[in-house]
């Protein structure tokens, strides 16, 4: 695994020149979170927010992400996880009945889930 960071020092380097790709932007000390960024992430996560929530989250995210900045001080660490595969024979067993599987759905039809229209 290689370290993709280009900077050799950290704070102290000039921080203007906000041009460049996202990787360069990420290397700069302060992470800018504005309302548009919050709206963009909410859109990715499929969570609609009202304007008040966007405002509150913008302030809170700035504070929380600034706190997360301290992760930059963490040394790259060997991650030798003791992972083992857990295998079992693929045997037929009882599962949920169709009726049980559908029992909590808002809308069903002929034994299927009914979702919202696709477009």
């Amino acid at each position: 695994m290689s370290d993709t960071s280009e900077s050799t020092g950290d704070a102290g380097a000039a921080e203007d020149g906000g041009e460049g790709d996202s990787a360069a932007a990420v290397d700069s000390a302060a992470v800018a979170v504005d309302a548009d960024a919050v709206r963009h992430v909410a859109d990715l996560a499929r969570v609609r927010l009202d304007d008040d929530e966007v405002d509150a989250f913008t302030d809170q995210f700035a504070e929380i992400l600034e706190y997360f900045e301290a992760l930059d001080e963490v040394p790259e660490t060997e991650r030798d996880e003791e992972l083992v595969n857990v295998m079992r024979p693929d045997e037929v067993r009882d599962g949920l009945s169709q009726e049980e599987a559908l029992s909590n759905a808002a809308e069903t039809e002929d034994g299927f889930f009914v979702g919202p229209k696709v477009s």
Partner: protein
Amino acid sequence: MSTDYNAFITEATIEGDADAEGPLAGARVAVKDNISTAGVRTTCGSEMLADYVPPYSATVVDRLTEAGATVVGKANMDEFGMGTTTETSAFGPTKNPADPERVPGGSSGGSAAAVAAGEADVALGSDTGGSVRCPAAFCGVVGIKPTYGLVSRYGLVAYANSLEQIGPIAGTVEEAAAALDVIAGPDPHDGTTRDLADVEGADSDPNYAAAADGDVDGLAIGVPTELFEGADERVVETVEAAIADLEARGAETTEISLPSVEHAVQAYYVIAMAEASSNLARFDGVRYGDRADSDGNWNESFAETREQGFGAEVKRRILLGTYALSAGYHDKYYQKAQDARAWVRQDFEDAFADVDVIASPTMPVLPFELGESLDDPLRMYLADANTTPVNLANLPAISVPAGEADGLPVGLQFVGPKFGEETVIRAASAVEE
């Protein structure tokens, strides 16, 4: 009950096996409302699942009822386990029986409050970053976070799979340990559970209740400076007095250092939020859960369903998790958090070369007043400083009452090496004497 602590979201009975014998026969159990109970709604403290009725029970619920325990209700909790106070529940906050003006801790606040108020003998919670130990400490009861893989998560509604374990809460160490005896063990429905016969160095046939014998003669207790620094002085004094008491009974204490834990809270929240953003993607209102009336297309309908069904803290974590995993930020946050996790694990491993258990305050603060931290998420996160390292390292831990400060309960946490539950139980039982 003269006071209603709002410990339960749903009061319902699931009868235990009347013929069973053993310490849990006839016991009343409160089950955290993110643990599935067949036929009894399981809300996760969320509007999203307010009417969700699981068609099957979690393995731990089956094991408790087979052991003769009767489920008396589904305990209140922070929505999807996301909180340290039980105030993010869509069903209103739980009050702390030790002081009804204060929070019971979280996220398993209803579970701990039910035990503290005598409304249940034993409770189940789930602990992702301290959610069993924090409310146990705040309510003055005992809570155990088992080693990752000791207890089945089948039927636990997932928040952050790589971190969480179901654990028992009870009035005494022995009762909590007896409940752990019942729920622990491999489960074919959860591939992350381990058979202790296959774990090197583990006792393959443990008896947790029997380990609560109070014998700490010769026990080597590590005291990490990092987990005392920054804690409330009243908490530190109470915990130090309890540790001194153990020294008087033959335990030996050593000051140790765990430099990595300074980064545990950041690493924990990045990993937990990232896993949450993925796990909670399932709540789209189609197969289960609340669905918004929407004329929009698939994506719009999902977004409206999730706007309506999730509370602020859940949205905050889903969004921050999505952000931390998004292009350009994945290496900066998620990868660094995984480095920190490996570092924390290494630090504990090194420490356990020299000591048997590690002792600290469970919570660095006394219970918050109701409403005090609700609008300041970062402040709430920082309260998890001493509990989150344990989840990052997959270790067992217990919180036991160490005494009171200003009339409020203070919890002492013992952390043990992997599958070293008996050692932390033994140490904690000595604190009770």
